[in-house]
């Protein structure tokens, strides 16, 4: 049975009980910044920080989900407890979503009994969903060794994963055309590792060389992002990939600069959200006051003065 009391649910998470984990994720997803959602995170926070959080990003259809299927199976085989979260876009018109990532990894998930959760981004841009930070904490506290997160897959727009994951795999491949140029110009910085998938297809070696050259020309810090070629249909190259993921995991655990930035960003987002939710009623009241809108239309005030007077009246 699923615990219906919050303290039991929290105990369940810490013990690694699936049903508790699963329900807790629904709570942080559906009742963001509610008393219950916050209470869960507050209580489990001290149990987090053990798992290695790996983000997988890259253009649509490049093979991210297939890769997660392979990685999670192989990591399970060597005794790691793997959890997976994959994010899909919600329709901006209806709010609905087809959560299609699972189908590509279902076989591995079943065979190895891996916990996997599909989330819709519910309007958040940047490749993640707002609840992903709390979701990852729940999975971390439940005893995962490694948590793999698949971003929406909007290519150049999936930047937020750097603020969530310790290790970011940027998956690229042959046949990307202009997209690869855009990625090279824009978001090379976010990859800790570059994976060239679909090495079985023509053009893959060229893509690999291309990325290697671009990386060689970019300024780099202490960590030099490796480029690993894989074939996800045969799992060729996966031993190397896992080796590099582990190597980077060890590297970040030592580097406090990276984590400092991550924690700071998370705090910033949380404050923003808390502020907004705390003053939600006042703001909505203000926005639905037609007299206020009319005074703007009739130029009796301007948007800045109106906003200032609202904030002054609250604070």
């Amino acid at each position, binding site marked *: 049975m699923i615990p219906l009391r919050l303290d039991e649910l929290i105990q369940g998470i810490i013990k690694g009980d699936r049903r508790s984990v699963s329900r807790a994720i629904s709570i942080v997803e559906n009742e963001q910044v509610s008393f219950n959602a916050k209470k869960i995170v507050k209580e489990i926070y001290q149990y987090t920080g053990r798992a290695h959080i790996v983000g997988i990003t890259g253009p649509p259809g490049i093979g991210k989900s297939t890769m997660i299927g392979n990685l999670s199976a192989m990591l399970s085989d060597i005794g790691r407890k793997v959890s997976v979260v994959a994010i899909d876009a919600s329709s901006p018109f209806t709010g*609905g*979503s087809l959560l299609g990532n*699972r189908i590509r990894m279902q076989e591995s998930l079943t065979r190895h009994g891996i916990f996997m959760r599909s989330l819709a981004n519910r309007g958040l841009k940047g490749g993640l969903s707002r609840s992903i930070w709390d979701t990852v904490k729940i999975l971390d506290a439940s005893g995962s060794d490694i948590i793999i997160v698949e971003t929406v897959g909007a290519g150049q727009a999936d930047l937020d994963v750097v603020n969530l994951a310790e290790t970011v795999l940027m998956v690229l491949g042959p046949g990307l055309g202009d997209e690869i140029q855009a990625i090279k110009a824009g978001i090379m910085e976010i990859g800790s590792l570059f994976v060239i998938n679909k090495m079985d297809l023509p053009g893959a070696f060229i893509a690999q060389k291309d990325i290697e050259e671009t990386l060689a020309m970019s300024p780099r810090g202490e960590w030099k992002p490796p480029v690993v070629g894989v074939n996800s249909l045969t799992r060729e190259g996966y031993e190397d990939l896992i080796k590099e993921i582990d190597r980077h995991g060890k590297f970040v655990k030592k580097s406090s600069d990276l984590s400092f930035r991550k924690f700071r960003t998370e705090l910033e987002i949380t404050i923003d959200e808390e502020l907004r939710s705390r003053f939600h009623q006042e703001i909505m009241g203000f926005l639905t006051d037609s007299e206020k809108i009319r005074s703007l239309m009739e130029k009796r005030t301007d948007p800045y003065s109106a906003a200032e007077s609202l904030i002054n009246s609250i604070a």
Partner: protein
Amino acid sequence: MEAGKNQSLFKGKPIKILLAKPGIDGHDRGILVLAKAFRDAGMEVIYVGLLPTPEEVVDTAVNEDVDAIALSLLNGAHMTVFKKVADLMKSRGVNDIAVIGGGTIPEADKPKLEKMGISGNYGPGTPISTIIEHITSRAAEMRKLKAMEE
């Protein structure tokens, strides 16, 4: 989304639903039609593909914490396969996920399925709006059961 507007997150709690065809049945047109219709009705939809086992269906439903499972069979095996899913749910104590059936289901089987806790059981020609209404009301029941005490 309106351009220039601040990232406004959906405040709703969309219905989450798992679509599955457990059992050897290649008729997937209907379920694919439903998947798109449910998405367009604002639901979050997961389809696990052809031939998942009843165990896989229940595991997935629990891990994804869906509000409902939609089972579709056109091959006549619903009385055994749907029952397996319902039995597994019962034996695992999962009472807050609705099981809804559909496909080619003879009238005579419907009351028996209802008795197992499988509702709906809609066949060819059912208006999509009827199906969506049914799911919406079952999902609402389930959300009530899921409510947490503080």
